[in-house]
């Protein structure tokens, strides 16, 4: 189907300002919180009805942890940015450092996301 050479695009995407990231950030937080609310509904409902939690509920409860951890990482990533940008006019060392941190957080977020 898709040849690997075609996937990897040589030109990185353009940088975005922080205000442009805000909707994304908001949406991510909203999704995360809504998921937690759903899980909480499930757990509390199960507990109220059965007065005990099955194993699946416990797994679901544990999955809140990577959910929140991923959201924390994504928050950092969206604020600091990653190295997947056009770096031609990027000279500020603070920003570069932030983007390094953001890139690390991307990895962590992906791992947590895989755990979910």
């Amino acid at each position, binding site marked *: 189907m898709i040849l690997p050479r075609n996937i990897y*695009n040589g030109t990185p995407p353009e940088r975005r300002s922080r205000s442009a990231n805000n909707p994304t950030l908001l949406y991510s937080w909203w*999704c995360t919180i809504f*998921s937690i609310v759903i899980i909480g509904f499930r757990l509390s*409902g199960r507990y109220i009805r*059965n007065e005990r939690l099955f194993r699946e509920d416990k797994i*679901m409860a544990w999955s809140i942890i990577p959910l929140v951890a991923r959201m924390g990482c994504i928050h950092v990533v969206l604020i600091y940015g990653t190295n997947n940008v056009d770096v031609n006019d990027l000279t500020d060392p603070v920003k570069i450092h932030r983007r390094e941190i953001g*890139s690390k957080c991307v990895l962590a977020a992906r*791992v947590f996301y*895989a755990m979910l």
Partner: protein
Amino acid sequence: MAKFTVSEFLKRLTERFWKKGYEWGLRGIRIFLALTFVMVLIATLAECRPDIRHYWQVVPDPGPQCRQGYAQLLTMGITDIITDVLLVAFPIPIIFRSAMPFKRKLSLTALFSMSIILIIVTGARMPLVIDRKGIQQFRTVFASSEIIAAAIVSNAIILGSFLRDRGIKKTKFKAPSTTDSMERRGSARRYTNQPCTSDEDLARSLGYRTKPELTEKTSTLPRPAPVANLNLLSSNRQDGLFGNNNWQFPQQELGMFHSNSDKLSAADIRDPMPSPRAGRRVSWVDAGGLLDNAAVAPSPTDSVIAHDFAPQPRRNSRASNTLLPNGRAYPPPARRSSRLSQQSEDYEMSVRPSHQLQDPGGLLSEEREKEEDEHSPTSPPSRPSSGTTRHQRRQSAPTHRVPPQNSRDVPSLQDPGGLLSAHAAAPVHRTSTQTSHDVPSLKDAGGLLSSMSQSPATTSPRSA
């Protein structure tokens, strides 16, 4: 994890009609899930091959492989789709093989097929992200959408069962299991036995009764039964909180029976009465009635009954021990009760009336001791055995009780010090308590104690 949840649910579903094929299918799905996780991990961390530090290298462009993370995206997307398909496809043959009406089959299939949403989202995500050159914001948006979709899907079945007010609760309600009923009974029993603060309750619940003389004596006394019972219940309930000074009414009641009851202040008495009544209360709860009957005529069956109910009351003994230190703050009750339970186990092997007499006298309560303390002025010769036990208690009393009394502040009314010193010198109840109010210092309390421990008889007579 969300998919593990779904697989767990399917497992619980298929447990009812167990088939080998389903189990293997589920196991395969789980193994595949774990494998997926490992694959994604590898794809995430090993895509940028020369050095992992290139992942966060910014200024010299590390190359698109380290920037865009397409391997993770593709691996995760594809394996997600596969697992979703598996999880959707797994329950469908079960549903269609079952003997449900067709409409219900269809709705159930739709419910289980909600993971198709996930498949669509994931499938749409991959090419779109690649189109946008893997820009992080776009990925995040899609990932968040996927997360919420996964949360909805994996919880939809359970939440739907909540909404339709069906599900696992119904089966539980229809067929309450044996464990359920046992749990309930245990909780009920614990509730009723929890307020029993007297150590005689403890011993009785262990299958021991008090000395026959004591029980006979107190039970033959005329007493308005219902009033006494209510009073006992209420005061017992407060007893854990407020200590000893709410035994007013029993004391007034006592005034009918004991000529020297004017000596007894409210703080002093820890109610000599509750032992027989508490015993009756236990009998009202459970097999203590049997024990009561057995107490009249001890027989080999007695031991059997005691053995029956021994494991249950041991828990109760712990429960009541948690109440005890509130009333009298000293640690030994736990140890003593453990000793008691050990010995009770020994006694269960060979229950003899003489041992039963000895055991509550030697090991048990202050109530009994207090009872003896009250009774002894009126009728000392009536119980010779109680005299010996009292002496033992007095000898052991200073070692046990002095430290908590020193650690606690004396001036409080509910101080166990008043109680304890009141024990040691039975005729001097009121004096000792009043000194404990008046003198707030610890030293004096210690002095009181030491004098008490030296010789109870030489304590100052009632002169305050």
